[in-house]
């Protein structure tokens, strides 16, 4: 009999064994599983790592792409006064938009989660509408409202100087508002009522409670919202393209260099520069989210809405109504613009903007609907493929025993796309897939590559959704399956997928709605005749056909709303079917 040590110290004998392992025999199932791992790694490599590497490499070659020049392109960017401004501009836009958006979204979120003002569900729904249109649509609308010939400008005679930073910031705030709102509503809903009861029992004033309880409990949510808005604003291409005027930002700079001047080296250089702030924001956000998870304890007593003082309630209600009216009126402008002959000179009604479609001097038969059909096809492919790939890869990564290093690497790769701006991703695809020497060249100029770029552009959020849903499942389901000699794919299809179906549906919806409105990754990838609607809005605006752009925007908006409705019914159906095994 010996004295026993605490298990923290390693005995010499055990130390020798640490690196050893009695490895289990490789079964047929293991081979299948490992094969899937290899496929997943190949998928991430070909459509994420390799293109980004090509883009990075391209920024280190001269304009012709023949001679290695090291960091000369970067030096050139920073030393040329006319180009170096775009970096500063981007930061200005992103920071100002971040402060304004987070402030507005916080007030709005507070009002609809914590107070008893009337119409909260309606206000919440209206506030999320801007997610259903491409980011450049708000810029178009602002031109109709505040541009040199806008309604507001003509009515008041006051020109706010829309073209430039003012217009960009307005559009970014509008565009990023629902994204910040979702995060802040979640953060404010997670409050623990007991903290408030404790503060009240200690006779803290409501102002003191706000600053000592409310704000600290949502600080991670605020930080997360700030990072998201910053990233959206700094990477957005649509709004600065439409309303930016001479005010160059990084995203438009990349476009101008590549499409305008065919200067791929400088395009790659600027896109690498754009990658830096988004990577930093991404890493900071990951840290903040980890802290937030640690903060959430298992049992909280949720805090419901509470009646505030009549003045507070009135002020908050007025604010929310103002925001809602503003959002609704922008869609009003889209509708009016879409059905008006020639804004603002001939205001008579017409439907011709839906049936004609002129872009780049070519007339497409079938009008806007053909273009919309392209969008729906592309979005459907991206949704089905994306949902399948994201969910199965999250399953492989979460629910495999062993292979720890492979799982960590694949997890990291699966969450990085969030840090890659669409412009950067799209341009990197050009570098890889437009190269006749790569075996994947056949993909270039197809709907397929557009769908794949969309999947990767929006990869991270669905992946994390799937990953979270899988983590919440009992980790022993797989062990039980194995002990009952069921192959893993049987347990996957019979148990894992049915239980995670609500998450699967929300992943599909996320892919579909984003695929309808995305532009930035696609501007470099489309070929004439295969434009998707969001892209066509930009091309029409470029060609001065803003009424057609409005008509198409309206169609995108309606398609988005309709598909949202379909997904809602789908979720309801699944819930009804699964209610039997959820009720107590």
């Amino acid at each position: 009999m010996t004295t026993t040590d605490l298990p923290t110290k390693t005995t010499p004998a055990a130390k020798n064994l640490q690196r050893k392992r009695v490895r289990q025999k490789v079964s047929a199932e293991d081979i299948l599983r490992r094969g899937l791992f290899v496929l997943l790694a190949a998928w991430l490599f070909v459509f994420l790592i390799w293109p980004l590497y090509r883009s990075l490499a391209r920024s280190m070659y001269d304009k012709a792409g023949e001679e290695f020049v090291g960091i000369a392109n970067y030096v050139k960017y920073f030393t040329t006064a006319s180009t170096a401004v775009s970096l500063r501009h981007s930061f200005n836009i992103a920071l100002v938009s971040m402060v304004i958006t987070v402030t507005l979204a916080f007030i709005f979120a507070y009002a609809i989660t914590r107070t008893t003002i009337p119409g909260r569900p309606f206000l919440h729904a209206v506030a999320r509408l801007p997610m259903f249109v491409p980011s450049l649509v708000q810029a178009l609308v602002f031109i109709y409202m505040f541009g040199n010939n806008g309604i507001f400008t003509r009515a008041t005679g006051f020109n706010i100087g829309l073209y430039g930073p003012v217009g960009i910031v307005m559009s970014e705030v509008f565009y990023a508002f629902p994204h910040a709102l979702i995060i802040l509503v979640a953060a404010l809903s997670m409050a623990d009522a007991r903290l408030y009861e404790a503060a009240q029992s200690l006779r803290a004033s409501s102002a003191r409670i706000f600053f000592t309880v409310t704000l600290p409990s949502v600080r991670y949510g605020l930080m997360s919202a700030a990072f998201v808005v910053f990233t959206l604003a700094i990477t957005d291409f649509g709004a600065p393209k439409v309303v930016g005027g001479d005010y160059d930002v990084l995203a438009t700079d990349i476009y101008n260099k590549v499409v305008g001047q065919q200067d791929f080296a400088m395009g790659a250089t600027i896109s690498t520069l754009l990658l830096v702030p988004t990577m930093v924001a991404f890493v900071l956000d990951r840290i903040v989210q980890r802290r937030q998870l640690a903060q959430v304890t298992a049992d909280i007593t949720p805090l419901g809405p509470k009646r505030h003082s009549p003045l507070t309630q009135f002020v908050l209600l007025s604010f929310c109504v103002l925001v809602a009216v503003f959002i609704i009126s922008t869609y009003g402008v889209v509708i009016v613009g879409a059905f008006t002959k020639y804004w603002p000179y001939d205001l008579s009604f017409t439907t011709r903007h839906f049936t004609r479609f002129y872009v780049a001097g070519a007339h497409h038969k079938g009008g806007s609907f053909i273009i919309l059909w392209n969008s729906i096809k592309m979005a459907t492919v991206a949704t089905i493929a994306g949902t399948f790939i994201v969910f199965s890869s999250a399953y492989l990564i979460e629910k495999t025993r062993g292979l720890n290093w492979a799982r960590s690497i694949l997890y990291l790769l699966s969450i990085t796309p969030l840090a890659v701006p669409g412009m950067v991703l799209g341009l990197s695809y050009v570098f890889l897939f437009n190269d006749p020497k790569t075996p994947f060249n056949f993909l270039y100029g197809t709907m397929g590559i557009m769908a794949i770029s969309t999947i990767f552009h929006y990869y991270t959020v669905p992946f994390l959704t799937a990953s979270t849903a899988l983590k919440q499942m009992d980790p022993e389901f797989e062990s039980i399956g194995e002990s009952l000699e069921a192959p893993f794919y049987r347990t996957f299809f019979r148990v894992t997928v049915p239980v995670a179906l609500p998450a699967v549906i929300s992943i599909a919806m996320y892919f579909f709605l984003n695929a309808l409105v995305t532009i930035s990754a696609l501007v470099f990838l489309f070929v004439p005749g295969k434009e998707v609607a969001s892209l066509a809005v930009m091309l029409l605006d470029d060609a001065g056909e803003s009424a057609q752009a409005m008509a198409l925007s309206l169609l995108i908006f309606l398609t988005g709303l309709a598909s949202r409705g379909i997904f809602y019914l789908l979720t309801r159906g699944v819930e009804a079917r699964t209610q039997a095994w959820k009720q107590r």
Partner: protein
Amino acid sequence: MNDTEKSELEQYLRIINVTKTFGELVAVDDFSLDIQEGEFVCLLGPSGCGKTTLLRMIAGLEEQNAGDLYQAGKNISRLPPHQRDFGIVFQSYALFPNLTATQNIAYGLESRKLPRKQIADRVTELLNLVGLPDVGHKYPSQLSGGQQQRIALARALAPSPGLMLLDEPLSALDARVRVTLRLEIKHLQKRLGITTILVTHDQEEALVMADRIVVMNAGRIEQVGRPEEIYRSPATPFVADFVGVMNFLPGFTEQESDSVRCGSFKLHCAEPHNLSVGEKVSLAVRPEDVRVGAANDGDSNVVPGHIDEVEFLGSFYRLTIHLEGLEDARLVAEVSINRMRDLEIDVGKTLPVRLPPDLVRVYPSEMMGGMA
């Protein structure tokens, strides 16, 4: 063939020098144990002692760093879980929430591609076996915790495995359900004669259910034995303290190998301690073995005790006593309600306290280091 070899061959499950580390932490440290066919063995220990890790290695859900496992004479060390012969039940039940009780039980039978009729018959048989013939159509969320655990048990038993692994199966249940279910599981196990390993941190559960208890601490075996052995003759202070409640009094060994000096008293123990004179030791005695009040003449080990505290615990009283000359040590004694009344025991009184020599154990004080 000599006797030991023969008995080794007869063992159903052999765990030989198994070690498992997680980074710097040694979860299971050179562990060996033989289990006979039909035996019910409990792995008992505090959380983090490696008992669950050991169970998961037997199932193949963890790979050991070293060591071998034999089941029914076959080396299973390198087989993946689905090629081993066991059924497992977890604390969380892990019933598939989207499948009915019947579908859950049938899950493992379907893997074996049995005919439909045969599966249906077997499911009915198992539902009857666990005493829930009418819940087959229900989903797990519609069942109580105890019912869910019975279905989980039925699911694990359905394919007739040779070995049953139970990982804290009762810990998530109410106290009352736990008490009935632990007896049911024991009876079921005896009826089926299935070799079973149960992991638990609940000493009462282990004492009630097991044929043999393995007390584990820091990845190693502290003691293996029948429940009565473990409780009556704990081999180490750790076991004494972990299984039941134990008083420890500081002392020194005396000249005679059966006596110990505690403060100013010389106390005897029935079992000789075989230690040299003047060594620091701990004297251990269980609260229910401490006799308070009215000793007979000629009784040994009687010392005056001062009553510091009296707690009423329903069916008995718990006294906290300190012995004269041993001001720092506290002695806990359990006294029945009748005896309390007869002896008029109360706080502040000093009464004779007897520590029966045959119920007193002595541990060298360096062994105290391993206590939880």
